[in-house]
């Protein structure tokens, strides 16, 4: 008889940790984009807080993804998708991390072009973020990465 595996498996921590930073980084991009026209504190500081927390969450996702990689790679039929997912995620997190650094420099220099560079990098980062998410979804819905597939007679649920 098959036994239902524990829910709190190492590979499950990755999907649990990715969605919050995705939302935070996309919202941070939106806030900073609006702040180009409206320099109010809500958009500017709000965007900075979202960005900072999102980047921390992004690095946590990279860590949990690395843990999951060691487990699911042996079961995938096409691990090249996982490699692309990993590469895109690293580009995404490095782009947003660099935005934090640009923002710190902008804090000292107060140059308008630095703010524009920041928003452009965030928009490109959001594109990579969407692509990373798409590849992650492909891994789950086409290759059942990290997913427990129940037996055909659902015996383990009885």
């Amino acid at each position, binding site marked *: 008889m098959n036994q239902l595996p524990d829910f709190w498996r190492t590979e499950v921590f990755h999907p649990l940790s990715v969605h919050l930073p995705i939302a935070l980084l996309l919202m941070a991009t939106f806030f900073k984009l609006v702040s180009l026209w409206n320099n109010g504190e809500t958009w500017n500081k709000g965007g900075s807080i979202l960005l900072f927390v999102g980047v921390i969450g992004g690095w946590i996702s990279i860590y949990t993804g690395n843990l999951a*990689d*060691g487990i699911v*790679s*042996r079961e*995938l*039929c*096409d*691990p*090249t998708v996982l*490699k692309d997912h*990993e*590469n895109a995620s*690293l*580009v995404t997190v*490095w*782009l947003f991390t*660099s935005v934090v650094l640009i923002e710190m420099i902008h804090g000292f220099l107060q140059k308008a*072009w630095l703010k*524009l*560079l920041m928003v*452009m*990098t965030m928009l*490109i980062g959001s594109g990579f973020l969407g692509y990373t998410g798409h590849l992650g979804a492909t891994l789950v819905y086409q290759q059942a990465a990290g997913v427990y597939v129940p037996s055909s007679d659902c015996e383990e649920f009885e």
Partner: protein
Amino acid sequence: MKRIIKLVPAFLLVVFFAACETTDVVESGIYTGTIDEVEPAKTEIYVKTAEGETLELYFTEETSLSRAGEEVDFSMLEEGMTVEVEVEKVGKRLDPISVEIME
């Protein structure tokens, strides 16, 4: 504005090449190459073949690892070692059947 137009693509290229790692999918067979990277936590190695391809190999319970015909532990593997690997291509996954340390 011109400064930004020049900066963004250059910046993107730097990030892209610094972050990305590529691997190759090859047909089932025996390959000789050098260990490029060892990941003990994942029992995984990257082997760079003489043809310049990078094979990402996750050891399975069936993978045999040997040196001079004797079974050895995964911890014996180090970067720069020459190895002969027999791989089986399953879908686009490469399962290592055997790894022989040549040196």
